[in-house]
């Protein structure tokens, strides 16, 4: 399957951080969550951000996705500098250019699966592209369950709805925050498969935060974060190579 023309070529940058810092608190309670992080997320690539708890991986994602403000440095989605945007513009940016998959609270319980999937477009007041929507729904295997409400779906199915929602509006980039954290391993594998397929077959760009080496092994590239800094990077990872690197940081962390 060829990539859609609407998407940039594989070499373009979908999002980029330059010297990005995030500091919480002041004086004695000062915590540096991100310490001058520079990283690039290439379009059409599936990147995993890994790191132990408190490494700043979620903060990095939040800053890149326009959910959190940065203390210094720059965060860009495509050509848009996020730190220059006001809340209203940020909201619009998230709506039009970014897709989200969270660990939990992904769906509105009052809406059907179909309504949840088209929610970002409904908010924008846009009509969904019917053909594209059908394709997305087929890809995640939800055609039979579109009229169900979240409470009638399993955890894995709910997360598939969330993935479909993220894909439906063809965002420039999808951020996934521990998307398999609440799922059993089979459902988790399914979700990760969809995310990978969306990159491979639909040309989507995906950035996923995870602490699970198996999940990270689905990505094209893994970025390792520790103490708010990027400490390593791995291309074409497997669960074993990722685990290997992780152990190294843990060991370092303990000896240092």
């Amino acid at each position: 399957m060829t990539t859609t023309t609407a998407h940039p070529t594989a070499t373009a940058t979908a999002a980029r951080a330059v010297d990005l810092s995030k500091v919480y608190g002041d004086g004695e309670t000062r915590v540096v969550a991100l310490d001058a992080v520079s990283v690039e997320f290439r379009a059409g690539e599936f990147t995993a951000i890994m790191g132990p708890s408190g490494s700043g991986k979620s903060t990095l994602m939040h800053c890149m996705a326009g959910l959190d403000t940065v203390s210094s440095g720059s965060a860009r989605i495509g050509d848009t500098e996020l730190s220059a945007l006001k809340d209203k513009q940020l909201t619009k940016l998230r709506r039009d250019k970014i897709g989200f998959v969270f660990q939990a609270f992904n769906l509105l319980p009052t809406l059907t699966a179909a309504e949840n999937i088209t929610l970002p477009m409904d908010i924008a007041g846009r009509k969904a592209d019917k053909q594209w929507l059908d394709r997305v729904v087929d890809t995640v295997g939800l055609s039979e369950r579109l009229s169900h409400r979240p409470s009638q779906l399993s955890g894995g199915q709910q997360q598939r709805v969330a993935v479909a929602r993220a894909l439906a509006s063809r965002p420039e980039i999808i951020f996934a925050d521990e998307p398999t954290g609440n799922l059993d391993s089979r459902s988790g594998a399914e979700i990760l498969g969809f995310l990978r397929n969306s990159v491979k077959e639909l040309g989507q760009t995906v950035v996923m935060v995870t602490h699970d080496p198996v999940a990270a092994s689905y990505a094209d590239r893994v970025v390792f974060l520790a103490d708010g800094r990027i400490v390593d990077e791995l291309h074409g990872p497997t669960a074993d190579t990722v685990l290997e690197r992780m152990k190294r940081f843990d060991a370092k962390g303990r000896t240092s």
Partner: protein
Amino acid sequence: MFRTALRNVLAHKARLMMTVLAVMLGVSFVSGTLVFTDTIGSALRKASARSYSDVAVAVTYGDVDHPLPQRLVDEIGRLPGAESTTATVSGFTAIADKEGRLVGDGWSTRGGNYTGTGRYPMLEGRAPHGSSEVALDSRTAERTGYTVGDTLRMSIDGPVMRQKVTGVFSTDDGNVAAGGSLVLFETATAQKLFGKPGSYEEIDVKAAPGTAQATLKAGIEKLLPRYAKDASATTGQNLADEEARRIASDLSSFNTALLSFAGIALFVGIFIIANTFTMLVAQRTKELALLRAVGASRRQVTRSVLVEALVVGVVAGATGFLLGIGIAAVMRAVLASAGALLPDGALAVQPGTAGAALAVGVGVTVLAAWLPARRAAKIPPVAAMSSVHAPATVKGLLLRNTLGALLSAAGAVLVVAGSGMKDNGNMVLGGGAGLLLIGVFVLTPLLSRPVVAAAAPLLRPFGVTGNLARQNSVRNPRRTAATASALMIGLTLITALTVVAISVKTTVDELAAAHLKADYQITMATGQNLSPEVAEKVAGADGVSDSSAVRDAHTELDGEDEWVTGVDAPQIGRLLALDFSHGSLAAVHGESMVVDSDTAERRGWHAGQSLPVRYDDGTKGRLTIGGVFEGGDLINGVIMDNATVTPHTPKAGDMRILVKTAGGASEAHQDSLVKALGENPVIKIQDKAAISRELSSTIDLMLNILYGLLAMAVLVAVLGVINTLAMSVFERKHEIGMLRAIGLDRAAVKRMIRLESLVISFFGAVLGLGLGVFLAWAVGGLIRPDLPSYAMVLPWDRIGVFLAIAALVGVLAALWPARRAARLNVLEAIKAE
């Protein structure tokens, strides 16, 4: 456990806020009412105690024809136990202000005889002498701006008098203390004006030191039969006691009326309290389960929730009590500025009021928290381990719906049955209405889905936010129901009252318009009878083509007392248009009369019947029923010819005069009538528009007072909506966070909450309007026997206003919750567990 409860209250301050406010408002209304009536009561009692402090025995006449003569006064004065006597005569005295308008309401403007500086200390000028001088009480002087030397226009039974003000006095007269006016004449003048020369209505006797009131009374009673038939003597103590009793009973009905509205507000508050505690318990499921797991008994859990309610109740009761004192002060100021005549004096705050405030606050709160507390105790300890968020229960709704349907049906049946009953219909209807309200309240969760679904087309233009708002509003049907019910109760009462009042007004208005062919109606502003010369003056006024005195005369007709209405037979056909089932107005002449159908039915009369009559002067005769008509507010009973009844009735009084002018009502005609009657302030000349205005103003005033009182219930309902929305926002933090993340901007979040608020408010309003109209329709059945042509009128304009108010309630209530929702930190909302 007490400490846990206290900690919980402190931890949930913000969320308990609306509950406290709701209870506080109700309590403040209760204590405000109590303080207000205590204040008025104590001021009135003080005034009456002062006015009786110098009266040991009061002698009053028993028969108008046998007033108290001067000789009796002299005789009493010579009794050994009597120190002094004050003999008085008094009566209604209308005075005009400088613009010629009547001062006061027509009832509390009095006149009397000047009895010396003891009772009436002169502040300025001197006592009145002769027939053309008066003294005026200082409060009225201040109010009207009259001073010594001014000429006062006044009237006692019709003719205008011009009196010179020679003095301004102060007085502790109860009527003046209550805001009335008092003018004093020289005794001889007053006797001529109010009674018979040389006689009095009342003699107040002051006892000599050492003389008991009872002894003096016994002495006086021996004198009475010789001088005045049927006169009686009462001790000052008795008078003061009786006055105190009268004040107490007057105030108690006032008290009851106000307190019942406070009760409605508190009742509405119960929904909010129950809602809040239900939510608090649901949110704390894990916490409470943990308590159970570590060994707390069910009872302890129940108690901990009830203690929280107790704390809330105490806080609300105490603050409500303080607010109530303020409300009492405001109430007095508002009533005074609205023209009510209230005594001065400090606010009377009694310990009992504080006790009542606390008891009501605590009682209502604990009562409302009872069910949630029991539900809390049922949480199994294992809930502490499970990670499942407390799911909304669906069980119990079947039972609830069945119960609600039964209650509503029973209520509706009673309402309809009561509506058709002749006696005790109002009791049955009232009971049915209560049952129906409760039934509908029980049913509201069921009703919420179809009603809110029906609102979908209205929400569609708002796109996804409208859709979300609609879905959210029916997510917790019980909570939405309780919130909407709070508003429903207030609106049901408001709508029912409005529809009934407007219907009555319209019907009476139409009746007056249909039955009255006259252009003007002339009456006394005081409701007394017009003096006979008024009718003559009117008949002779420029432009008057027809006029008739409508006279009240007592007769004995067919063996029973009957007040008949005398009219001038030749003219009446051109002044009135009545609906006759037999005959016509032409049948009123000579020995022929007409009666209304109600009287005919009551007395068993029929057209053509001849009845024996005995007039007041003893003359006997026979009258024939020449026609039967449909009675109304304007005229009813027996109508006969003035020419027949007046000569035999010395005490016949003119209730009103109907006037027709050449070419219809006009300003010129009205001016000529006013001039012909000497620009008299007490005589009211009204054209049809003014009659209908007067009627409207009475009904409007009553409605406005009721609106004001019911506004409290609506205000409490607003707090309920705020409460529910705040809870929803809190519970849906994650969802709102997610929505914000995927692109819903702040304005849209606000709009979503606002729309949800509007949906809930309109739901309550629609139920309230529906029930209100239904109850009003039922009440119509009770009114029809008294007002046969009563027809229900739906005041669409007002119903529109009520809907607008519901919308306003929705928007206002959403202000704070919507702001909170929009300000939610997206990250925290999605991160939080």
